């Protein structure tokens, strides 16, 4: 028991033998993950490997077919509604689109979780909101509506909202997709800074290798429902696995072939006929 408890203290999220499928499609086929407390852990993999699904499983929005998902020692799938909501108040999640409430201003969006979950007076909420907005550099944009924000700004507002309740961890769903270099740089920096300054645990799901590797302490690479590589960014770059190397270095051809499976090129051309 002592060993388990000591493990628990530095492992915030522990996933064991996770199985999950959507209809016929198997998404996870026995995944084991440990997310250490206080660090930035990246989960990477090609598109369509269910990285977002993994975050939803951790957040309790989906239930696994088999296996265990533990967050801070609590078994997420076994929690009831009340327990789940209690746990979620300590988690922040940054959606790909930002998921800001479109009918509320930037200020009200950040104030939203505070107003929903606390009885704080409006003056204190104001202080907190301005603090969080200052942290993401958007204090001046508090009167804007979400439709007036660029993608990068929307994500930063969403980040301010995610840290409004001072959570123990934040999950980032593809934070770098579709960003211009400047806002990408701002986000990369912000994620690392916030993690260290607020003592958070961060989970980043992404397929942007360079940016993610730059700020991660530890990386899991997932493909076809299994963990195919793990280690620090340094270790992964020098891995023996050809597949992981192809993914990390973004090589066009390798174990994942450039060509979709097809009959022999020459034969195909010579056969003639219609485009069957």
């Amino acid at each position, binding site marked *: 028991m002592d060993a388990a408890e000591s493990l628990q203290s530095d492992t915030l999220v522990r996933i064991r033998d996770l199985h999950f499928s959507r209809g016929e499609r198997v998404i996870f086929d026995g995944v084991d993950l440990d997310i250490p407390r206080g660090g930035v852990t990246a989960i990477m993999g090609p598109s369509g490997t269910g990285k977002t699904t993994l975050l*939803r499983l951790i*957040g309790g*929005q989906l239930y696994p077919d088999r296996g265990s998902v533990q967050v801070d020692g609590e078994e997420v799938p076994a929690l009831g509604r009340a327990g*789940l*909501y*209690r746990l*979620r*108040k300590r*988690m*922040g*999640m940054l*959606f*790909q*689109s930002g*998921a*800001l*409430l*479109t009918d509320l201003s930037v200020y009200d969006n950040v104030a*939203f*979780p505070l107003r*929903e*979950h606390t009885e704080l007076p409006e003056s204190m909420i104001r202080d907190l909101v301005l603090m969080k907005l200052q942290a993401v550099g958007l204090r001046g944009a508090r009167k804007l509506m979400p439709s007036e924000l660029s993608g990068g700004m929307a994500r930063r507002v*969403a980040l301010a*909202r995610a840290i409004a*309740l001072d959570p123990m961890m934040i999950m980032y769903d593809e934070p770098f997709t579709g960003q211009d270099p400047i806002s990408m740089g701002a986000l990369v920096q912000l994620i690392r800074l916030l993690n260290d300054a607020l003592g958070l645990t961060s989970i980043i799901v992404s397929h942007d290798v360079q940016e993610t590797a730059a700020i991660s302490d530890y990386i899991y690479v997932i493909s076809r429902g299994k963990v195919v590589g793990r280690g620090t960014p340094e270790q992964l770059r020098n891995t023996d696995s050809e597949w992981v190397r192809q993914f990390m270095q973004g090589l066009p051809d390798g174990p994942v072939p450039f060509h979709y499976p097809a009959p022999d090129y020459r034969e195909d051309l010579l056969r003639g006929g219609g485009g069957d």
Partner: protein
Amino acid sequence: MLDWIRRLGAGWIQLFEKLGRGHLFLWKTLVGLPSVLVRPRLLLAQLFSVGVLSLMLIAVSGLFVGMVLALQGYNTLVDFSAEESLGVMVALSMVRELGPVVTALLFAGRAGSALTAEIGLMKATEQLSGMEMMAVDPLHRVIAPRFLAGFVSMPLLVAIFSAVGIWGGYFVGVGLLGVDEGAYWAQMQAKVDLHDDVLNGVIKSLVFGFVTTWIAVFEGYDTIPTSEGVSRATTRTVVHSAFAVLALDFVLTALMFGDN
């Protein structure tokens, strides 16, 4: 052939699944209603977008329906020298049938489709998921106030529709066609019964408000989170609401007025 049967079966299974989801959804929404009453601001905003924004359409439609009724009714009644009954005819048609039914159909088109599209887009842009992850139940925070607003707005809109329509009938009948003013109101008051006609109309409007709003918010919540899914759900809201209103109207009319 076998494929056809399989598809038919799948269709039925989907229908029952949807029915089940719809009722569970309704139950959870009703459970969330008390949390709305604690925060009247949420309800207020929805009353605005559901009720106030539908008001113009409803009032103008009511006016014209009443005017047309008076015009048509007059042409028929004048053959029997019974044009004095114009007021009765307009009032009974409006209060019993046209008020609740036409208002509900217009409401489904104006407010219902807007509700579905709004909730559907919130789902498509992950706002509902985001709320869940912030430990806020979207059924309580988003759905319940909209549902309550629709339920409250409908009887008010129906009353306005009927009142404006009766006034429109008065304008055409008395003002343009020369029906005696006293007869228009007096016959109406003598024949329209508070309980049998007005109250039953209000009951109808409550039922229609409940059903159309339920369909609208459920279609939005149950939508496939893509732009195509949202547009389909919006269409379904209008079509299903129209069917539901007309079918329920028949049932309610048979129950209420069947014995005279």
